[in-house]
């Protein structure tokens, strides 16, 4: 079984069947490019992976663990969703940065909230352990705990800061650390969005047409960053209209049309020897547009 295994994903919006049984597997460190014409269900697939939409049917295995099974979908499945989401990162077409936070704050916000949650739990546990001690012992132990907790918190903070700095470096925005999103170009904003998604160490990072809201000039810098991620062994799923990019970077290409996988294979297979007519027509058309 592959690192990520999707089995028979289905999703309807009312009458409209948008995903009609999608199955594929992706190995760790691989890059999957999803191409396809408008309305084919690419965005919906990514949203289902990130549980922004809940599939109507299908199963999802990650690293051998069953993460989602529509058949079992009860209260519990929905409850754990927040944790499960953390396995995936998503970079939106329209960036969706938080405008009131600086670049640095955008990157650290989520980690910070998680850290605080952990810290609170640890504190609670430690405090609970106090109950078993006698009154003399307790005071002493409390002092000690205080020291321990302070240390935990400062370690957390240092680690988050370090992480953020290294990410900023990676996307080439160290200088924009304290800028607000509105002060950045579209390409810079998208790079911050990538760093923000990476900050939680997702197992799989998803991109939904990360350059389609950008001027051609700014597209290059974002694609460069994504290429860089590949060389550092990130597992990625990229929905894109940039055929050149898909061909050069992807290990696996999926062509989606009308909610089904019309064609799947290596870039060479899909781009150079497409089996289905639909794929051929789509590739032809996108070639014409570029010229």
């Amino acid at each position, binding site marked *: 079984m592959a690192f990520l295994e999707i089995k028979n994903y289905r999703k309807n919006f009312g009458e409209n069947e948008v995903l009609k049984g999608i199955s594929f597997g992706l190995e760790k460190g691989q890059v999957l490019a999803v191409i396809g014409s408008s309305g084919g269900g690419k965005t919906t697939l990514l949203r289902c992976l*990130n549980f*922004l939409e809940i599939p109507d049917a299908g199963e999802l295995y990650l690293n051998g663990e069953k993460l989602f099974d529509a058949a079992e979908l009860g209260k519990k499945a929905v409850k754990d969703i*927040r*944790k499960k*989401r*953390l396995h*995936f*990162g*998503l970079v*939106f077409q*329209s960036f*969706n*940065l*938080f*405008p*009131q*936070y600086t670049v640095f704050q955008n990157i650290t*916000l*989520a980690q910070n*909230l*998680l850290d605080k949650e952990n810290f609170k739990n640890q504190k609670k546990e430690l405090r609970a352990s106090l109950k078993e001690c006698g009154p003399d012992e307790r005071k002493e132990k409390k002092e000690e705990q205080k020291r321990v907790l302070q240390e935990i918190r400062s370690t957390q903070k240092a680690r988050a800061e370090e992480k953020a700095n290294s990410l900023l470096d990676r996307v080439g925005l160290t200088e924009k650390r304290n800028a*607000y*999103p*509105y002060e950045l170009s579209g390409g810079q904003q998208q790079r911050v969005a990538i760093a*923000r*998604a990476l900050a*939680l160490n997702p197992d799989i990072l998803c991109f939904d047409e990360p350059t389609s809201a950008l001027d051609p000039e700014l597209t290059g810098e974002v694609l460069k960053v994504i290429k860089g991620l590949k060389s550092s062994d990130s597992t990625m799923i990229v929905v894109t209209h940039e055929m050149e990019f898909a061909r050069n970077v992807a290990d696996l290409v999926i062509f989606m049309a009308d909610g089904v996988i019309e064609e799947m294979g290596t870039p060479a297979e899909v781009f150079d020897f497409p089996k289905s007519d639909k794929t051929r027509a789509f590739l032809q058309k996108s070639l014409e547009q570029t010229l």
Partner: protein
Amino acid sequence: MFIEIIGELALGFLTTLELFALTLVFALPLGLLVAFCTMSRFYPLRMLFKLIVWVVRGTPLMLQLLIIFYGPGLLGLPAFSNRFLAAVIAFVINYACYFSEIYRGGIQSISKGQYEAGQVLGMTRSQIFMRVVLLQVIRRVLAPMSNEVMTLVKDTSLANTISVIEIIRVATTISSTYAVNIIFPILYAGVFYLAFIGILTLLFGWLEKKLNYFRV
């Protein structure tokens, strides 16, 4: 005489200010709650609150004051012993409804993407609201809110309908009690209002500047 009149007016204006402050303190959060109710996914709740907001916004505050103060007693319920309290309640309800519409506009203007970005980052609903959305909403509602707050300052004068002795009531009583300079207490009252409105204008200007550090 002049000093005396100003003193009495100032005392009356104190009541005005109290009413103003209490209305804000309660109506600002209550308005948010009402906004959530009018956006609830639960149809009956949503409809109920939309109706309430429509009725409250569709009738004069003067009328609401009369109904709230004299209504319960007439219906056999324990009556208000404190007319100032009744005024505060009427103002809070009225303004919560007005504020709710402003909040609703502000909340609905925040793009879905902001919520989804929060979800994808594993935040809880309340974290998303408090950490991501709220400040943006505040930023967006500041201008209409400031208009509404200015209106509140002037609306406080309606409280004299149920005999709360605010500054205009004091001014008219003074001017009919003393035959001299009969119009002046009313003019002075205007100065009190203008001064207060001026202060509030500065305050909102400052707040707006504070929140201008980011763009939505």
